């Protein structure tokens, strides 16, 4: 069985657009008839990823590959990169600027939430080059 591939652009510095890709992916997964909890997990992970791209990286792209068994996501940006990934994974650790925090974002829960709602999470990041987060959600 081959797969369905989807591609989304996330525009940077615009909070009003954050959540668009997550909403669209959710609609596709509903159309494909995946269980509600799987859809919710993917939607939350993508949403957090989108917010991160907007806050830190000036946007990015999301590539999705769907098979009946697994939903794979690559969240790719060309932002500043993450110097210390294990620190970034700590709940509450945030490098979001003050103006972003005032909007209610940047609470330091983004990456931990992505981990919580996915089955596999691998972060490739190079300072000054960008970050790619590989995610997998398995359909049990």
């Amino acid at each position: 069985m081959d797969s369905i591939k989807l591609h989304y652009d996330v525009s940077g510095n615009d909070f009003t657009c954050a959540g668009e890709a997550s909403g669209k992916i959710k609609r596709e997964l509903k159309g494909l008839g995946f269980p509600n909890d799987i859809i919710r997990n993917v939607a939350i992970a993508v949403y957090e990823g989108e917010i991160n791209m907007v806050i830190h990286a000036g946007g990015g792209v999301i590539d999705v590959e769907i098979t009946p068994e697994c939903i794979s996501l690559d969240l790719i940006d060309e932002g500043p990169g993450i110097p210390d990934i294990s620190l970034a994974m700590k709940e509450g650790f945030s490098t979001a600027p003050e103006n972003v925090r005032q909007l209610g974002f940047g609470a330091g829960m983004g990456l931990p939430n992505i981990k919580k709602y996915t089955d596999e999470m691998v972060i490739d990041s190079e300072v000054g080059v960008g970050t790619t987060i590989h995610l997998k959600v398995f359909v049990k």
Partner: protein
Amino acid sequence: MDAFFHSVRLDKDKCKGCTNCIKRCPTQAIRVRSGKAHIIKELCIDCGECIRVCPHHAKYASRDSLSQIVQYKYRIALPAPALYAQFNNLEDATPILRAIPLLGFDAVFEVAAAAELISEATRRLMKENKLKKPVISSACPAVVRLIRVCFPDLLENLLPINPPVEEAARLAREYAMKETGLRASEIGVFFISPCPAKITSFKNPLGMQKSNVDGAVGINDIYPVLLKIMEKGDKYDIPDAEQNSGIIGMSWATSGGEVSGILNENSLAADGIENCMNILEEIETGTLDSVDFIELNACQGGCVGGCLTSENPYIAKSRLIKLRKYAPVSRNNIKVEGIPAHFLKESPIEPCDDVMKLADSVSEAMTRMKRMNELLEVFPGLDCGTCGAPTCRALAEDIVRGFAHEDDCVFRMKQNLAQLENSDDFESLIPAPFRENTEQN
């Protein structure tokens, strides 16, 4: 009871087959076929958006007429608080309540009075802290059906309490049986409704076996008649009718009213079907997990914005604010401890057959989605509606489900023709939006 009963209907003679309603429908439940709008019954949520937008008044809400109430020995009217907001220059709702019996009713029971009991029951239930957060109000039947069709995973967040109109009907019948000695079936209970969704909820109830309401008339049906009666002044006074609802009960007619009645600041209220959908998306994404209670009204402004009301919702809201100015906060309270069972829904609201799914198996759905994506590559993406579907995507979905054909897209068909023809008139076969502009600067 027909599981697909809908109050929203089409008058075929008036329908011109234009694209206004298909574009406005929040669940994309309308297609134009044979020059007429066709409502897909599995998807319709009776929100009334199509009634509002149809320039030919071809969409209407099926409801009872006042002449139908005579089949009952004893007739009770249940005015929605939105009715009060239709009238100007009133200090309280008493004159309205005194005029309603002259339409042929033996008694009047205010839905606003029952709403105050529902507010109290909600406060008690929220205090128990056992509900899944955020709790979503279940008072707006269009919202409940929207959740059922498009957001089935949020059904478990719905407040498991009956809407005020059901409690009003139950209490009104109980009082009437005691007072008159009549049997339940001899008493007719009629709602004076601001919207078709409520009417549907009586014929095809969710979360209860049988509705307590026997029928419904529209606010806009009786408003002109009531106005005439009231203009004749004290002539018809019925001495024992006094308003029996306060600020909390009346406020249920406007967006934010239900929330204000549960006395919890950690809540939010949204109105208008599109705003409701956006909030439901946010709940699904988990961004509103820390909110306790969410009130959603499908109509703009709340029930005063219902498509069976007469007055502009913003004018109605301002009138309601004046009307409740000197009212007590609440005039009704639950006389016993705890939450009596009749306030609670008999059963959880079950999801309907998954209408969002493209096919029963994921692999078949994937095949169909691939085909859809191919079609979307070649469709013009104008969402013009000429094919009878609201968007190119909806047409693609209809095609893979076998309900439509690729050539239903006139642009696609013209493009195909243009490729076949080798004539000099090639330019004219290219659809106008894709032709070079020669006529205008």
